[in-house]
């Protein structure tokens, strides 16, 4: 590709990076042209985030060279990268909850003279940026802590745009966005590239890559396996093979017909959480997968959290196998056989500094124990079983959860409830940030659990996923059930139409 004329904006050669015993990058090359959308793909843990962190001054590479507009550079601090014109939207939300939207946008490069802030000016620029991103209704002075994850992502993007940049790196920006938001994001990306700004785009969703990408580079196990593939010319199957080294059929597992006399396991009646939703009633039968479809912010998370007792219902009740749960008591829900895989994996799900096996047995170590004495051998045994069954990588039960990639962290949460053996499983965004290979495995797993009689509720921002995986679907908007349908009776457009009508009303 070197002979084609446009000089690369950014060129990376032979980058390596080691964290303690983990060799995260073993030699990565990358070449980004001005004005292109360059997609970086790879499985969970392949080293994508590590790569972009070395490009944004967060990590110093151990070896390798970085060229910026033809000149060799050293990116030792975030400031160094930012001042060259490299802005990054990180995979982990990098916003400050206690600050307003505008303050977050201008963090580190405040609108100020002599250290004194221009609040009005910052707010009006922020408002314009938000408008450009299609979120003019967000007030720039609103505290970011009160925003949904999706809206936080918008703030991150506005921040990247607020700088004078030549390259914007987006590490899985779409993971927490719904379909509409993704289109919005793409609109902005196109606008950027038309101005000659380059975008490095990371995503596990192949359709997105097809839609927005120009060229693709693939990383596998910390090594470049393909560079500068043309998006249009590379078939999906080949991409998957380059990433995973095998063929993965990215199809949803076949549904087993739900037997009509399957008993109702989870019964939700007139459930209410003031300020979020009211009078919600529905049932889930054994072996049924019930999907919650809706836009981000539609209170789906709040509903499952309330069922689980993590939030205290203001009215109504939840029963499992006819037994009523104590409102606001997680432990009574867990005892009754409900498990929740929460939306925010890191802050709500994992103890990041603890080893994998302890995270897996977090709900069951008491059961493994005898009269209060831990049985770590038993714990490690059951954890190892799940590590093997879910193909968790690395398969080292002693590795701290922090050092795992997102997809593998998600598997820990599934493993937790598999060990526990729940009769009701609530999955809030179970495939967020999970690679194609693992995603297929998780789908299969979910279906297998349902077939074994578990009642499952699944929330996903990807309507396709909800429809593909569930037996029945609740279309939810603003805490209200707009429709309850069999997943076969409705398609993506149908859901979106319902939601649009719902919010218009």
């Amino acid at each position, binding site marked *: 590709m070197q002979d084609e004329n446009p000089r690369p904006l950014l060129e990376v050669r032979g980058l390596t990076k080691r964290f303690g015993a983990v060799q995260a990058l073993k030699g990565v090359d990358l070449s980004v042209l001005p004005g292109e959308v360059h997609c970086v793909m790879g499985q969970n843990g392949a080293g994508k985030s590590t790569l972009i962190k070395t490009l944004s001054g967060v990590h110093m590479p151990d070896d390798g060279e970085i060229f910026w507009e033809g000149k060799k550079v050293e990116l030792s601090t*975030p400031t160094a990268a930012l001042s060259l014109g490299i802005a990054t939207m990180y995979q982990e939300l990098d916003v400050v909850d206690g600050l307003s939207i505008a303050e977050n946008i201008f963090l580190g490069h405040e609108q100020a003279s002599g250290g004194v802030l221009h609040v009005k000016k910052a707010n009006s620029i922020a408002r314009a940026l938000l408008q450009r991103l299609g979120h003019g209704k967000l007030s720039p002075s609103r505290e970011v802590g009160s925003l949904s994850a999706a809206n936080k992502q918008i703030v991150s993007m506005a921040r990247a745009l607020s700088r004078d940049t030549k390259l914007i790196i987006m590490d899985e920006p779409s993971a927490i966005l719904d379909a509409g938001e993704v289109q919005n994001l793409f609109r902005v990306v196109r606008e950027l590239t038309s101005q000659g700004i380059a975008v490095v785009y990371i995503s596990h969703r192949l359709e997105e890559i097809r839609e927005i990408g120009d060229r693709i580079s693939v990383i596998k196990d910390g090594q470049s396996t393909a560079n500068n593939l043309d998006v249009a010319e590379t078939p999906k199957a080949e991409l998957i093979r380059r990433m995973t080294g095998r063929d993965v059929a990215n199809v949803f597992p076949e549904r087993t017909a739900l037997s009509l006399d399957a008993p109702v396991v989870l019964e939700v009646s007139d459930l209410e959480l003031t300020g979020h939703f009211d009078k919600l009633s529905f049932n889930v039968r054994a072996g049924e997968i019930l999907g919650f479809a809706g836009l981000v912010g539609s209170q789906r998370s709040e509903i499952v959290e309330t069922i689980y007792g993590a939030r205290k219902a203001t009215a109504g009740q939840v029963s499992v196998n006819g037994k009523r749960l104590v409102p606001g008591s997680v432990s009574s829900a867990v005892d009754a056989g409900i498990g929740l895989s929460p939306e925010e994996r890191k802050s709500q799900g994992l103890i990041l500094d603890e080893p994998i096996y302890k995270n897996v047995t977090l709900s069951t170590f008491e059961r493994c124990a005898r009269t209060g004495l831990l049985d770590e051998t038993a714990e490690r045994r059951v954890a190892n079983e799940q590590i093997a069954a879910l193909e968790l990588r690395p398969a080292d039960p002693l590795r701290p959860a922090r050092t795992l990639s997102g997809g593998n962290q998600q598997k820990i949460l599934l493993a937790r409830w598999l060990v526990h053996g729940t009769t009701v499983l609530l999955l809030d965004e179970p495939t967020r940030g999970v690679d194609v290979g693992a995603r297929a495995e998780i789908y299969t797993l979910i279906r297998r659990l349902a077939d074994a009689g578990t009642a499952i509720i699944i929330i996903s921002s990807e309507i396709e996923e909800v429809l593909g995986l569930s037996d029945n679907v609740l279309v939810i908007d603003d805490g209200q059930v707009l429709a309850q349908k069999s997943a076969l009776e409705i398609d993506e457009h149908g859901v979106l139409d319902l939601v649009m009508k719902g919010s218009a009303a």
Partner: protein
Amino acid sequence: MDQQTGTPAEVPIDSTKSSGVMQTLLHGPAGRSLGLVVALVVLILIGFITSGDRFTSSENMLVILRHASIIGVLSIGVTFVITAGGIDLSVGSVLGLTSVVGSLTAVQAAASESTWLIMVLVALLVGAIAGFVNGVVIAYGNVVAFIATLATLVAARGLAEIISQRRTLLVTNTDFTKFMRADFLGVPVLVWIFALAAAAGWFLLNRTTFGRRTVAIGGNLEASRLAGIKVKRHIVSLYVLVGVTAGIAGLMMMGRTTSGTSTHGYLYELDAIAAVVVGGTLLVGGRGTIMGTVFGVLIFSTLTNVFTQNNMDTSVQALAKGAIIVLAVLLQQRFASGKVRKAKKLPLKA
């Protein structure tokens, strides 16, 4: 007034299902101090009921304010480090050290006219140096703030004792002590200093890049670093700032007591931290309120005054004080916000 989230008027809180203006007020920034205002008013009422005019006289109010002023200035500084997620246990002991070095300067420099200025500068410098040491050990040595400043607490006290040879040094510059003990427009200079420090602190925290970055670091250190903020440098400057406020407080103490000794400021760190946290600044960082701190300081100061007016036994005072601290925090929280998730997350931490 007390928050960095912009003026309350601009915050529509939330479009979805907000239940009226009152809610907005109570849950907004104004509400965060409301509980404290209520607590203070209740205290004042109790004072009035039990001691009548003697309590509400303007002289007595000035006694309360003067008493509050030194801890007050200290607490303004402490608000910054706590907002940034740190803590400073050494402020009281640094206060003592600055008072000793300051007094000694005055003695050394004899009665020359410039003494005053030199003394002030030296005291502030000593405070700044102590803060600098704290900051460097914390930011570059990666020692947790609690331990680093605990070490400084011990060391500064020792140094002050060595320098003063454990004597109470008299502040010989009468110009200085007169100034510090004078009134200006009917209000004591000490109280003016407190008011100015509070105003400056409020401005610094809410209207400058320094303040924004302080809140940001406290809220999410990693994100701040990624945004290009020189986090370590900022942390050092924060501890220098609190050191300087300890220097100012030391000077006030020298003026108020006309003396410098290593015992000045003993255990003030706990009073300051209590005032800051009761005021609503989060001990885990990420939210700080100067107004809240001012209220916190005033509540404690008024409490002491009410106790004294009623000639209450010290032990009973202690018992009551413990209960009142908890009540004030509960009240403050109740008014502050309905953020259940937040509240659920915080209690254990720090």
